[in-house]
């Protein structure tokens, strides 16, 4: 084990913990809004980088590199959509969601859905689904962290896993959202420097971009095609469309990512954040896929494709730089894992515990529940990752496909379509999640040549439209929700009377009572 590598890793962990401690001193955990949304005071650059580093997980260093190694340039279909994912998210729903969530007084992405589509069923279904899927997603990050650290430092996999989990838990507990956002900021920069360093080293080793491509073409020309090794995906536009969608429009359905909109310092933050997110993605996103492709030449005998980037770093870089790259890889993993854990805890405390179990829970109790669940999810994830780790690529594609399919229409229509109502949103979430899940596990991808993300999003979108239109008379969108949507669409500060979130909650209850009376009258 190289002492320099360990020195860099320790230095990296110290900085990350220092940022967490600083966030704590800033009062990030003093109340629930401070803990869950950083007091809605996060600026454009931090918003952009926490969004991007949260979205770019350990998948980028394991799954993306492995896909490039296995399939050649076909892997770039995933990067092509991913480059614009953050920009699309911020430009389509960022500004409006920030305004609407403030008017509603929503502190989590699931609470936001219930207030836009008033019904406890929305919160119960969305909350349960999200906790389950984010738990899965955390598992992928833990496996990535354990595998990578064990390989590079030489320590055992269980110990490496325990170190990664321990550090993530400490700083997530310390400062809540603000700690996560500011450590993400730092980690996104480390990720960018690290991956660019490996790519430059790989290009230098191979004599440049063109020379590397010529050499790959001589080995197997199909690796240079857009259809994968042996043209295995030739003409499969359904799979290509899914690969493009999953990390572009798909982001708009990920609760742990859209929460970033709610924490922005102002609605206009979305504009400048869109700029920074795109600049960062243009440099970062294609690099891990390309390094994976170049690894075909550098590591011809590689057994586990998901280890391509680690092995390239180890082979080409001096120990000091390998330490930096290792820190970058851990940054990608931890910046996603902390956000996932915080969101899982937030949803469990606010959307399940307070909403359905203990409505009179104090803020202190809720923070305790949130932290308890974070600990439980991390420990269960640790146990599974230790006993039988599946591939990072398969878990990430599963979790993100189902998340995107379930929630994309609900979040987009929440701000853009005034006819989107509660039955439409509920049916859309259930159908989208079910279709994506079944498509993946019934082996329908191979037989239909359609990506689960594509079929999932298509089915949830159609369901939202059909059910909303069919149920307009029995379940109209309440007047106060329509008013809030109009305010969120208009450019200008939120009028003072809309800033009393209590009023919004009461209006939801009043609308429910009025509906009940109306139905009672019709029945009578």
């Amino acid at each position: 084990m190289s002492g320099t590598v360990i020195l860099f890793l320790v230095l990296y962990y110290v900085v990350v913990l220092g940022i967490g401690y600083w966030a704590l001193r800033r009062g990030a955990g003093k109340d629930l809004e401070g803990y869950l949304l950083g007091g809605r005071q996060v600026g454009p650059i931090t918003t952009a980088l926490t969004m991007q580093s949260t979205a770019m997980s350990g998948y980028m260093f394991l799954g993306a590199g492995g896909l490039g190694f296995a399939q050649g340039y076909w892997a770039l279909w995933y990067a092509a959509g991913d480059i614009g994912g953050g920009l699309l998210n911020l430009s389509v729903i960022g500004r409006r969601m920030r305004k609407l969530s403030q008017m509603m007084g929503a502190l989590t992405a699931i609470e936001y859905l219930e207030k836009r589509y008033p019904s406890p069923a929305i919160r119960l279904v969305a909350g349960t689904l999200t906790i389950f899927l984010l738990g899965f997603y955390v598992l992928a990050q833990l496996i990535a962290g354990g595998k990578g650290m064990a390989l590079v430092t030489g320590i055992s996999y269980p110990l490496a896993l325990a170190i990664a989990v321990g550090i993530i838990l400490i700083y997530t507990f310390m400062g809540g959202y603000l700690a996560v956002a500011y450590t993400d900021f730092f980690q996104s920069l480390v990720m960018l420097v690290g991956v660019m360093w490996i790519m430059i080293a790989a290009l230098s080793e191979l004599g440049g971009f063109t020379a590397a491509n010529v050499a790959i073409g001589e080995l197997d020309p199909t690796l240079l095609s857009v259809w994968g090794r042996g043209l295995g995906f030739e003409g499969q536009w359904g799979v290509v469309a899914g690969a493009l969608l999953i990390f572009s429009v798909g982001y708009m359905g990920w609760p742990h990512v859209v929460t970033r909109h709610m924490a922005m310092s102002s609605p206009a933050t979305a504009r400048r954040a869109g700029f920074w997110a795109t600049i960062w993605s243009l440099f970062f996103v294609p690099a891990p896929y390309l390094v994976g492709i170049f690894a075909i030449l550098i590591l011809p005998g590689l057994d586990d494709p998901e280890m391509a980037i680690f092995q390239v770093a180890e082979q080409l870089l001096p120990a000091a730089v390998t330490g930096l790259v290792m820190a970058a890889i851990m940054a990608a993993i931890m910046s996603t894992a902390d956000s996932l854990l915080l969101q899982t805890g937030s949803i469990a405390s606010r959307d399940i515990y307070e909403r359905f179990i203990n409505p009179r829970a104090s803020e202190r109790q809720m923070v305790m529940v949130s932290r308890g669940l974070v600990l439980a999810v991390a420990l269960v994830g640790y146990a599974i990752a230790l006993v039988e780790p599946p591939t990072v690529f398969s878990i990430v594609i599963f979790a993100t496909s189902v998340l995107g399919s379930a929630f994309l229409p609900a979040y987009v229509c929440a701000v853009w379509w005034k006819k989107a109502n509660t039955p439409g949103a509920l049916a859309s979430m259930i159908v989208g999640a079910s279709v994506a899940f079944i498509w993946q596990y019934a082996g329908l991808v191979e037989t239909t040549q359609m990506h689960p993300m594509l079929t999932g999003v298509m089915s949830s979108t159609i369901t939202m439209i059909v059910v909303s239109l069919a149920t307009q008379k029995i379940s109209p969108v309440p007047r106060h929700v329509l008013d809030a949507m109009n305010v969120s669409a208009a450019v200008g500060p939120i009028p003072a009377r809309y800033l009393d979130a209590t009023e919004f909650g009461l209006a939801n209850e009043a609308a429910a009572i009025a509906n009940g009376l109306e139905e009672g009258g019709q029945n009578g």
Partner: protein
Amino acid sequence: MFGLPLETTLLVFGFPLFWVLYLIGFLVVSRGWDKDTTKEDDAS
């Protein structure tokens, strides 16, 4: 170009170019969004 077939070159360089153009369009369309910012937001 760069030792790649044409469609692969388009995949590697065309999509980033598309997103840059999208960004420019977004910045133009959203140039009035600063009116959303209140004095309280400025203070934070």
